[in-house]
């Protein structure tokens, strides 16, 4: 695919562009099959060109407007409605999902957990720091309580 086909004398210079890292899986197709496939494609294109030339150049037919089209012509004009089908079945649902992921999963859930953790730590520190009043007798009282608690643990546990 990345080289001139062997049929036209390609020398497979891209074959080893990833060296020995990527193994080469050569596909062998009979030369007759290759020629036949190319011939079918080429003949199909020539037929379509001849048909278009006959209809629009020799017979001078003017293509009808989109609004006037009906039946198979309308379906063909809309390319079998493939684009509309893709848009409603694949594109729109995926875009809706993308919006849901960024606005709900990302912003509310994942980010909520991360920033929530930080906020909880901040809240706890805000409450604990209010104990630091600068009142030495209060600190002594807390220290005495702590010593009593340690003493109780040593004696009774």
């Amino acid at each position, binding site marked *: 695919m990345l080289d001139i086909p062997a049929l036209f004398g390609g020398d497979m210079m891209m074959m080893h*562009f*990833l*060296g020995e*890292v990527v193994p080469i899986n050569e596909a062998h197709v009979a030369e007759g099959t290759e020629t036949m496939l190319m011939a079918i494609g080429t003949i199909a294109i020539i037929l379509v060109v001849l048909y278009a030339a006959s209809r629009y150049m020799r017979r001078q037919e003017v293509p009808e407007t989109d609004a006037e089209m009906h039946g198979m012509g309308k379906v063909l004009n809309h390319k079998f409605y493939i684009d509309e089908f893709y848009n409603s079945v694949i594109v729109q649902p995926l*875009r809706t999902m993308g*919006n849901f992921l*960024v606005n709900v999963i990302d912003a509310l859930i994942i980010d909520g957990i*991360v920033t929530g953790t*930080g906020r909880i730590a901040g809240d706890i520190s805000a409450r604990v720091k209010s104990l630091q009043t600068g009142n030495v007798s209060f600190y002594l009282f807390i220290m005495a309580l702590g010593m009593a608690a340690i003493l109780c643990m040593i004696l009774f546990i």
Partner: protein
Amino acid sequence: MLTLLFILFPIVSGLALLALPKQYAKQVSLASALISLALTVYAVFDFTGAMSASYSMDNIWVEGLGVHFHIAMDGISLLMLLLSNLLMPFIVLTANGDQYERPALFYALMLIMQGAMNGVFVAMDMFLYYIFWELALIPAYILVLWWGKGETRRITFKFFLYTLFGSLFMLVAIIWLSWSGGNTSSDVHAIYNMSLSNSAQNYIFFAFMLAYAIKIPIFPMHTWQPDTYTTAPAPATMLLGGVMLKMGLYSIIRWVIPVVPHAVEEYGLMIAVFASVGVLYASLIAWTQRDLKRMFAWSSIAHVGLITAGLFTVSEIGLQGGLIQMLAHGINLIGLFYIAQILMRRYGNNSTEGLGGIRSIAPVFAGLYLVVLLASVALPLTNAFPGEWMLLNAIFSYHGWLTVLAGSGVIIGAVYMLQSYQRIMLGEQNGKTHVFAPLTSTDKWVLIPVVLMIFIMGMFPQWISDITAAPVHDIVEKFQSQTMQTLNP
């Protein structure tokens, strides 16, 4: 000595900048970056394939703790240095078009960050590695906080919270590895030769992976990244996305796969699944974005998710593909974010709304933009194609169904990238886009080499895989023998 220069030269240049008059900041930092690049090019040509003794330096640093100042280069380290030092001159150049307050400090922090990241890539002692890992973070925080735009305090806090959380777990794992189970050294040889129980490997694996999953980032540890990339000044975004996140990917290859192979065998699939889900997740979100920088940030999460999934296949093609892709991703990211910066300078914001028709008045810019864009969606013969192809190939061989998730990024990536191009560059001009100031010489000095690198790397990727072939082969072979021993004790 050369390896030491890769660390010391940028750091010393950065510190020297602080002492010099500020009008020389740009020139001195560019000269420093170019000298580092020249040294790297010399190392690439001089490199013989094995971990050469001439590029190794091993001195006891803290004797009582068994900490060594051990730095060395194998092909993987060399490629990472090439990434860092190749991108740095362009990153410095991209800052040229903007005026930053305290420019000496701004450029100094970027150079110090470069030196620290180079240190991460060559450190062969876990303690030393951790020091460089943390050292690289400090300039990143300051760059985002002081020179960022928007809610920098809130976003830097989130960035800080995430990375500190991950780093602490990694520190515990390093301490455990270095000074337990009879081991008394944090040197790479001692760590590689440890015989760890399966449960110990599992704990260490998760402690390391938490830090790396945040750094890379992998879904669902990623929410710091889009905000930080969007808020940070463009050069800092390029440093973060182009080089710094590769510290996490590199560390998986250097410090996870060889150290805890059993845990990688057991839980590697789980990480690969998260990474692949992240590819689809980030691609879908990127599609909904109207801010170009934010879209590129989400696109980057998708790309690095694919690399991570490929690394956990622990195959030669997966690791080689991942390494090639790391370099390609760095080059493309510089191009994409610089394009966003060019538009930002001309139109005042990064919104794609209200633009259009720029191609008709700026065809050269349109062409360069198109090449960078096509490279980022891995068009054949551009630099991202070989790596992505090898990664998808490895993932398909590992677990075929994962390719559906991991490959979705390539398809959806093409959709949102081309749609954004259509909105910005094609169509009719409007009142806003009827003028487009011509590209400056700096713009051309950044974008034209980026485009050349895209084609050169896309057409001749073999020389990159030659650099990393030997160490990758050793890592994969050792992993396979270790995991086989576990299966057949």
